[in-house]
């Protein structure tokens, strides 16, 4: 995302809780340009180690999984189990926020 000088950067400002609140309120659909840049950053990491959802009951229950760190890629079911996709998106958003900022997201 862009820093205060307008330069594209992979650093995430941990004080921008407004972006996290925007995502929590609306994980799917139109976002502000700044949130979209943050989401592009979160979603464009390497495939190894990437979080994804593994279906444990078709269209009803998803378990958080993570690709292995090495090839050949394997799914590691790390949990938790979700029954709503928006809750899963928020959970992964918080995990990635910590990976990018080093801080826990101070929003439940």
């Amino acid at each position, binding site marked *: 995302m862009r820093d205060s000088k307008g330069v594209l950067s992979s650093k995430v400002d941990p004080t921008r809780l407004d972006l996290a609140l925007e995502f929590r309120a609306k994980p*799917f659909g139109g976002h502000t340009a700044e949130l979209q840049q943050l989401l592009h950053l979160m979603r464009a990491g390497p495939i190894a180690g990437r979080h994804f959802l593994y279906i444990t009951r078709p269209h009803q229950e998803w378990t958080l999984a993570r690709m292995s760190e090495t090839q050949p890629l394997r799914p590691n079911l790390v949990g938790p189990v979700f029954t709503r996709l928006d809750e899963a998106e928020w959970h992964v958003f918080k995990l990635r926020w910590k990976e990018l900022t080093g801080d826990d997201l101070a929003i439940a």
Partner: protein
Amino acid sequence: MMGAVMGYADRRSVRAGERIEFKVSCDVGADYRAAIFRLHSPQAYPPPMSPPFRVSAMNSVVDGSYKSRAQHIPIGSYGLVAAAPAFATLGAFTLAATIWPTLPKDGEQMVLGTWSPAMGTGIALSLDAQGQPCLIVGHGKGRERSVINLPVTLSAQRWMFIAASFDPASRRVVLVAIPAERHAFDSGQATQRVASLETPPVHAAEPLVIAAAITSATGTKRCTARHFNGKIERPVLLAAALDASALTALAAAGPGRQANPAALGEWDFSQAIDSDRLVDLSPAHRDGIAINLPTRAVMGSAWTGERHDWRAVPGEYAAIHFHDDDLADAAWDTDFTLAIPPDWPSGCYAAHLVAGDTEFWVPFFVRPVKGAEGSTARAAFLVPTCTYAAYSNFRSRVTGRWNELYHGRLTVLDRTDWLMQEYPGLVSSTYDQHRDGSAVVYSSMLRPVTNFRPTGRIYKFCQDLLIIDWLEKAGFAYEIVTDDDLHAEGKAALAPYACILSASHPEYYTTAMLDGLEAYLRDGGRFMYLGGNGFYWRTAFHPTLAGVVEVRRKGLGFLGPTAVPEGHFSITGEVAGTWLSVGRPPNMIAGVGFITQGFDTCEGYRCTKASSDPRAAFVFEGVSEEIIGDFGMLQGGAAGYEVDRADPALGTPSHALVLASSENHSNIYEVSVSSFMDLVPKRDPDAPDQIRADMVFFETPRGGAMFSVGSIAWCGSLAHNDYDNNVARVTANVLRRFIDPTPFGMA
């Protein structure tokens, strides 16, 4: 995740009375169960959000238990030349080829030769694990082979002529590596080595293999290993030992040289490019065969860049690109054969395979009996089997880096999706890249296909069953036609019907298919394009391998790009690419053409002033809302996933009515736009959004008509509110009118 049952059929389209073979591999449990079902709807969200999963047990004669057996998928392409007595009596010899390795340090890789790992006989020119050219010499079963290397590591993606010769009289071996780059300057110097081979080779009448070694063979089934990744040009086996100067002259003569009089085989890959034939220029005419569809029509070492059509300058396309993950046909043995009973109605069917807690679906489509007693319905659903083939085993959706980014959602996978990781032999689709990074241009349905089923992601076939479900719930009689049929029969496949309904994403069209559909429309046919991103990629069907397609995405970034000069199909010679790039944009036939995609949210359509045009009154009968489809199981709207809009500059007919347009699509749809102009905010608040799906209607000659919705997500709204909604009403209104024989008048 241990073990699986998987299968495929020898065809997708079958008429009542014909036979279809099912091939199954099962490595879990002693037995598996098979049963044939008719499919009426997909396994989607729990009701009432989606219709329930409806299937009918056919209680067919093939239903029952079968003994499990694991069947191997023989991936990796190679060239095969039949065993010959001359190979068994070799004295002096030379092996040579011009090569362009792509993974030169990725294990031992055969270039050509008769070496048999099982028999320990024969000779081969190869690269060792360090990417250095080698001569391999077999000394008989149980004896260690000799490997004489040339200590120069080849660069990836650089042309090099390599050769090895042996003179039994002097026991002298000569190895050379001579740069064959016409344009690049980084290929290094010519290298040679002269060595002595103390123990002469033991030859046998084994096949000559190009780009692999055969490790075992039973009948026509072969196991291969040590596959070469990269291009090979003009491989040759001579019954003479050329010295270094003669080898240098051979290299300098290039791929267009005359055949060497001492050749036991000299294969010219610039000939018969549109086939699997490897033409031998030697007097013995030992033509070979290319197995597993290595990529032909690729740039060779003589490339000039002047012409980009292999038909015009075949000598510049004299190479074949082999991959260790090519696959044309798994060639499994048949487990059971079903003769379709003549009383089975035309429709969507599948063999359901179950072993332990694993399952696999093998869909197929039944057309009516041919002849006077055949078709009875006024409408047919055109199953996009060409598109299913192009997407078959879409590996990038499982392990691609960008999947989540352009979907705007976490990737969601199930156990069947994951089979591609558990069984690498399932390889990949035309959306993927080979292990060496080159584009996958051929894709096959003659293997288990993990994304061709009524379950899993609601997309492609699984989603298309929503249209089948609605047709049945709304009480419309329908029959099935597939892309395979349209390709083979042209307009005759559609002619029995007053109206054809498309699937949700009929993206891939061969020339014969597009010509057939155009001819049908010009003869007064009606077409309901109930999808998005249709008629987009020009495609070629393989002439003999049922369900194998070729796609070449010239220069297109993340979609498995093909080099622009390799933009002609090898199968047909036609120029490949999008139909837009070929000069036949989808707007011409459908009134709309693809503009962008986004899978996070979907929207409704706002009716335009044109929706009040009397010509379109039938469309909106009983519809009073201004917004159409602001609901649905697919991310909440009928307009989305992939969207098309009208554009007169691209061929939307001037008399076409744009009846409704979607609006307010999310910024995920901005990721894939093809023009920055689509991102410029509009100045006129009354103008439609640039990023939108257009609903379009226009009449065609002789009383025909076209209705397009320009959105993949349309069918996700049909079942909303127990099928009582304006998307279902508009769709029914149009279909009812389109099967009415009263001709439309051209506006």
